[in-house]
């Protein structure tokens, strides 16, 4: 029966070329757009995540607490309705207290590299330009283990922080904004009031816009001088051999030591949540295309069923079972789905390769020259499955109607 039902289905489709073509176009476009958009979006997102994982620490321990410590009065009256007003925060010295023990404990863990740092804000003055930025006090030998700052340097070197008297490494964005070049002297002003004249000994380009536009690096000792906090660190940055463990490990560290500990996902959560929205938009767009394509198929098969009422009547009186009739029209949807999928694959491939050939400068969350595309068979499998499922489903409804037609009504009516 399979070949016969298929043969009848093929004839039906071939005899209404224009309708068949229209529904094919719908399915193909759905599949092609999915492949194009998905590879663009996912390419961008994966590229971003890779860059973040590559450039930023996987885990950062901060000298903060996620929730403020409970006030003693609440502990004193656990069952009462207590309201406190005008709490004056304790003017405590900030910083990771007991960092030595913390570092010792962390260093016991395998596959973990860490660099203690002191991070803060600065104002960078060069000529008439004032630029605010972040400063991170680092130890170059440890920094190598934790970030790829050294690889990102487009001028200078990490070790020249040791050799220069007051060396600073700045991001390319800052350099371009203020017209700062290598070996230029800049004034660095910290909120503590300390002002240092520093020499630019390195410029880096990470490709992540936020970092390139705001981050600077100095020796740890200089950072402590700038902030007037000798021997204090306020961040421990951690790199893991297995980045997948970042979230779990961050939670474990925070539970154990109390300090606010953020994984890279949490640090980039604003951008990652934009990705979620992006994906939602993508899937609903493609979903809408598929639904439209479904309507097209539904329409075509319904028309065919209507036009083929006489044929259905004779086939049934001849001895075709209900299921045979249903199969004919489901085959029609399936054929449209499969052929549409194949055309859509070819078209999607062409779209992706075309986008890959485009060259332009783009600066958003990251800096890129053209689209970053992610090519994976998954997109083909997913879009193909979607096309076949949708077209079969769209054909199923009219097919079921066809199989339920009463042949007596048809042969009586057509006489």
């Amino acid at each position, binding site marked *: 029966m399979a070949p*016969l039902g298929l043969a*009848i289905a093929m004839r039906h489709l071939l005899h209404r070329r224009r309708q068949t073509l229209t529904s094919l176009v719908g399915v193909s476009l759905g599949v092609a757009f999915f492949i194009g958009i998905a590879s663009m979006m996912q390419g961008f997102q994966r590229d971003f995540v890779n860059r973040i994982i590559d450039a930023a620490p996987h885990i950062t321990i901060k000298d903060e607490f996620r929730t403020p410590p409970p006030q003693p009065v609440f502990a004193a009256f656990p069952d009462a309705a207590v309201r406190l007003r005008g709490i004056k925060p304790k003017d405590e010295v900030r910083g990771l207290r007991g960092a030595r023990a913390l570092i010792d404990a962390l260093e016991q863990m395998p596959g973990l590299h860490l660099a203690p740092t002191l991070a803060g804000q600065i104002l960078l003055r060069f000529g008439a330009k004032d630029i605010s930025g972040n400063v991170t006090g680092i130890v170059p030998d440890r920094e190598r283990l934790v970030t790829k700052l050294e690889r990102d340097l487009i001028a200078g070197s990490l070790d020249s922080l040791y050799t220069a008297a007051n060396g600073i490494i700045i991001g390319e964005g800052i350099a371009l904004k203020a017209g700062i070049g290598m070996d230029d002297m800049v004034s660095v002003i910290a909120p503590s009031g300390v002002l240092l004249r520093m020499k630019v000994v390195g410029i880096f380009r990470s490709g992540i816009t936020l970092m390139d536009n705001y981050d600077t690096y100095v020796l740890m000792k200089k950072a402590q001088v700038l902030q007037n906090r000798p021997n204090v660190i306020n961040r421990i940055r951690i790199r893991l051999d297995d980045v997948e463990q970042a979230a779990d490990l961050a939670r474990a560290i925070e539970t154990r030591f109390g300090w606010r500990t953020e994984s890279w996902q949490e640090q980039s959560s604003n951008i990652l949540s934009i990705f979620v929205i992006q994906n939602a938009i993508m899937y609903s767009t493609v979903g809408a295309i598929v639904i439209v394509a479904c309507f097209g198929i539904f329409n075509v098969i319904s028309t065919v069923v209507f036009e083929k009422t006489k044929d259905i009547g*004779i*086939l049934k009186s001849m*001895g075709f079972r209900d299921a045979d009739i249903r199969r004919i029209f489901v085959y029609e949807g399936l054929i449209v789905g499969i052929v549409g999928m194949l055309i859509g694959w070819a078209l999607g491939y062409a779209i992706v390769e075309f986008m890959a050939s485009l060259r332009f400068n783009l600066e958003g969350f990251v800096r890129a020259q053209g689209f970053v595309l992610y090519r994976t068979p998954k997109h083909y499998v997913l879009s193909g499955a979607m096309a076949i499922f949708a077209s079969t489903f769209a054909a199923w409804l009219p097919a079921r109607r066809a199989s339920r037609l009463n042949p007596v009504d048809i042969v009586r009516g057509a*006489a």
Partner: protein
Amino acid sequence: MSPAIEARGLTRILPGLVPVTLVEGIDLTVQAGEFIAITGPSGSGKSSLLYLLGLLDKPSSGTVRLQGLATEGLDGDQLADLRLARIGFVFQFHFLLPEFSAAENVAIPMRRLGAMPEKAIRARADELLEGLGLAEHRAKLPEQMSGGQRQRAAIARALANDPALILADEPTGNLDTASAHLVFQTLRGLARDQNRTIIVVTHDTELAATADRRLHLVDGRVVP
């Protein structure tokens, strides 16, 4: 040997606000090789009776035995299988599938039955068409044939699975006298030469007179 078809108390009432009685209390026994004509005024229930005998419609009461086989308890698929293997229908309208050539149309029931290899199916389709004088029209689409040719192609299709019973509902209704005679002679030949049972509904009393037996219906009942 059991009769080709045996109907007992066949009644078909269409349910509804006002139930419509199509046929009522029909008793009929037809032996293999008999050629029967059903006549009667328009609306007397001739087609309805044919659908019941052909297992296309189910009676409200009464029974149909096909070659001794009781059909009351059978479900839709089983009835379809019986129609496929043992019954051939010819209607006033040819009902050929418009996308398929005459030979392909004739091949469809054989392919559905799947009892023969494709090559044998094609050979038999050609043979059937040749027997009905359609040899040179075998590759034509229905729209490229005349009314009489289409009707003969439809007869060839009804014969495809070598059915014991052929049911024809005014097969000559749309044809001119010459074509009608040809089709009728063909049907009669099938009964006489191939021992098939033929039941034909017709308005044409002259043609009906040539049948072995005549069944006259009025208001859904057999009248002598």
